[in-house]
């Protein structure tokens, strides 16, 4: 794994405009940086990342299988009791999943370590699937990278294929908080993939969803919602006013309800509890678990809320001293403690390797780089290549 400086496209502003990405004069594209790229060997990609991610996915499924049969586990994850049967049923019915991104700490000197699994509402999808690919085509064309360069990037075709396999009956509704451009842009792209697969679709705001007298969800035209592709986390859905209608609404949700177990950072101690010493896992414990003392006493650990997003409320402790702490609205959550596995440092750039899972297959790579050890919303996506 190398970080290689590169020449940026001269027409970057135009490229941004064509793709609906924000471009700020003097700063470049928001959330994107092509002044460098990361280069991997085929073996690193295939063995250390792709195989590892698919193996972790399999372990995750074993966690779900256990969780849905254990009230104490569901309770620990903070999942409201009214949803326990509903989530269990969605898993037992084999409701299909679409998307997720595993965030890995990887430095090519050892196995990739799972930091967390964004299994419910992952973003940076478009940058991975489309913009990064277009960069490679351009870079190959202009000779900016060696001509044999490839990319792990089968995200677009996989998404289209996955939508075909979902067998959606009738109209699919796509809903998110449309005021957030990042969310809307990501969901729009997912909808484009669905349409390419022949799915009929329309999009609406979360707050425009109605409920009828039979407890079914409706759109603004009064049509019932049968399939809802949402970029809106399960923990919010379950807590909000209409949440109580969800189990009897008859709606097929994508992501399915059982993803609530994987998108929770409680997944990490559950994984460690079942598969201790697995090379791709880090020691992790719920903060109220007595075993947590092994990490706390060692003095190097990371403290994360069960449910937080975009690097909020994360604390890194090194040699018993706080090395880094981020603010956020999730301070009151139950926390987990995870062994500290620092991201590799390339001249004060800290790349986080995101492995995109589509229908549980590892199909794409997204490197996000920040200048701190915790990857924040200010992080930028850098393209990658594979070259032997």
């Amino acid at each position, binding site marked *: 794994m190398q970080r290689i400086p590169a020449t940026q496209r001269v027409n970057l502003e135009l490229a941004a405009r064509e793709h609906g990405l924000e471009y700020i004069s003097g700063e470049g594209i928001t959330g994107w940086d092509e002044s460098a790229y990361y280069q991997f060997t085929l073996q690193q990609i295939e063995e250390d990342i792709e195989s590892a991610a698919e193996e972790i996915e399999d372990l995750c499924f074993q966690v779900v299988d256990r969780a849905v049969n254990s009230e104490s586990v569901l309770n620990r994850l903070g999942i409201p009791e009214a949803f326990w049967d509903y989530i269990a049923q969605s898993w037992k019915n084999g409701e299909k999943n679409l998307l997720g991104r595993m965030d890995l700490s990887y430095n090519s000197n050892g196995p990739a370590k799972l930091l967390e699994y964004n299994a419910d509402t992952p*973003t940076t999808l478009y940058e991975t699937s489309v913009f990064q690919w277009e960069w490679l085509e351009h870079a190959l064309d202009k000779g900016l990278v060696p001509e044999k360069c490839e990319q792990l*990037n089968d995200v677009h075709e996989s998404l289209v294929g996955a939508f075909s396999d979902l067998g959606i009956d009738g109209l699919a509704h796509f809903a998110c908080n449309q005021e*957030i451009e990042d969310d809307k842009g990501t969901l729009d792209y997912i909808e484009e993939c669905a349409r390419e697969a022949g799915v009929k679709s329309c999009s609406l705001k979360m707050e425009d969803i109605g*409920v009828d007298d039979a407890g079914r969800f409706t759109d603004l035209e009064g049509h019932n919602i049968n399939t809802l592709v949402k970029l809106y986390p399960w923990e*919010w859905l379950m807590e909000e006013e209409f949440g109580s209608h969800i189990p009897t609404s008859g709606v097929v949700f994508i992501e399915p309800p059982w993803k609530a177990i994987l998108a929770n950072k409680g997944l990490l101690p559950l994984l460690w509890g079942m598969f201790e010493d697995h090379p791709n896992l880090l020691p992790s414990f719920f903060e109220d678990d007595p075993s947590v003392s092994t990490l706390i006493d060692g003095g190097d650990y990371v403290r994360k809320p069960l449910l937080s997003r975009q690097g909020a409320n994360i604390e890194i402790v090194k040699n018993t001293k706080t090395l880094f702490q981020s603010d956020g609205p999730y301070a009151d959550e139950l926390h987990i403690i995870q062994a500290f596995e620092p991201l590799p440092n390339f001249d004060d750039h800290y790349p986080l390797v995101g492995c995109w899972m589509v229908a549980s297959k590892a199909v794409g790579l997204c490197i996000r780089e920040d200048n701190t050890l915790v990857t924040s*919303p200010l992080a930028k996506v850098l393209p990658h290549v594979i070259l032997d």
Partner: protein
Amino acid sequence: MKFRSSFSVSLMVSASLIALTACDEPKVDASVFKNIEQCKKDPMMRSGECETSFKEARNQHAAVAPKYTSQADCQADFGEGKCEPAPYRTSGGGSVFMPMMMGYMMGSMLGGRRSMMSQPLYRSAKNPGTFRTADNRNVGSKTGRTSVARSATSRPSFKSNTISRGGFGSSGRRFGSAAT
């Protein structure tokens, strides 16, 4: 490992899909009846089958029929005396109206198994000679054994009476992006 081959998509440019015209559509066999008596008189039909499929259509009627908050609006679309109160109330407690069920359509029997669910049919004021589904798909004027566009045989959507809106979205307003 699968590396992606080259592809081109016009992304982020909202694609408005052009609906296929009905004449290109494959036809499927179906049976259309004005009522259960007409079905029972048809020598091709078994009486038990008539009753089951009528009930199936009748049970969907209130849910899938178009809904109106005024009887006049309903009659403008479906004709004088062709509307009835729906078993729903608006959120303000007002009445809801819907067209009367004027017939039903059932799938053909293939190997003893019906090819689709039955569904109710309606007749519009403008075009009273033809039957249409609750989703306004024309299935022609012929009764008995007939063939209809496949799209007309899909399950009609519920047109329900939304009693409340805005019960989702509060966390998004509080926390901002859902992105992870």
